[in-house]
């Protein structure tokens, strides 16, 4: 049994130069977490920060904290060549819980999600069915966080509904 919850979270997209100490320090100061520079990993404190690419990250946080975090990032990274964008309106966050999740996702995702390969704290952008997704293994329980573009979310939920016997719930973080 897989439990699927739609979580109301906020999202910030961040671009910058990982090789610049000022950037990493600024991010750490603003968000209170270490900039994940290892590919396909995330770091976590009160919020999660996903590595998306060599110069791109996504912060997932409580929606109501987003304005504050945006401000903190802007202040900490002022004078640097960065790009900080609120994407909260454009992303839908799902939490999938249960031991069968890797198997469920394997129906329509080409990633190897075997726990020996994709462990807690790992993340990857890939395709799930015909939508692009960001998948993070966020809790050993296991819980997987799936972030999808808002416009694809109804399609993805339909896919999940058809491919698993799960209960959809909503929850606020």
């Amino acid at each position, binding site marked *: 049994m897989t439990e699927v919850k739609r979580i109301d979270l906020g999202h910030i997209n961040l671009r910058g130069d990982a090789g610049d100490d000022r950037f990493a320090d600024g991010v750490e100061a603003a968000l209170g977490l270490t900039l994940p520079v290892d*590919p*396909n990993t995330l770091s976590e404190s009160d919020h999660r920060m996903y590595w*998306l*690419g*060599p110069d*791109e990250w996504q912060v997932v946080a409580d929606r109501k904290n987003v304005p504050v975090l945006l401000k903190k990032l802007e202040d900490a990274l002022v004078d640097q060549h960065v790009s900080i964008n609120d994407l909260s309106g454009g992303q839908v966050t799902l939490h999938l819980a249960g031991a069968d999740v890797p198997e469920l996702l394997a129906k329509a995702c*080409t*990633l190897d999600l075997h726990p020996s390969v994709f462990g807690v704290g790992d993340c*990857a*952008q*890939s*395709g799930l069915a015909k939508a*692009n997704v960001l998948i993070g293994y966020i809790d050993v329980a296991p819980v997987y966080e799936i972030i999808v573009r808002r416009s694809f979310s109804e399609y993805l939920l339909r896919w999940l509904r058809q491919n698993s016997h799960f209960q959809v719930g909503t929850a606020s973080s």
Partner: protein
Amino acid sequence: MLLISCPYCGARAETEFSYGGEAGIERPKDPHALSDAEWADYLFMRKNPRGLHTELWIHAQGCRRWFKVERDTVSYKITSSRELSLGASEKE
């Protein structure tokens, strides 16, 4: 289906990538100094070799980075996969 090694994200299925054609096609610095034939050569002519081919791919479903792949067009074996910056000097 190819298994392509993104220099940033690692080996992923071909479905995550898009093809960008021959690598190393440099945009002329001053297009208007070129004859029509020279411009057409830049626009349209490609090597299309039988054998090793250096080509561009983008990890479209992943990190959205372009990179350079050396692939055998007969066996489809990929012999290298590198960040663009690492191979810049080899531009032909």
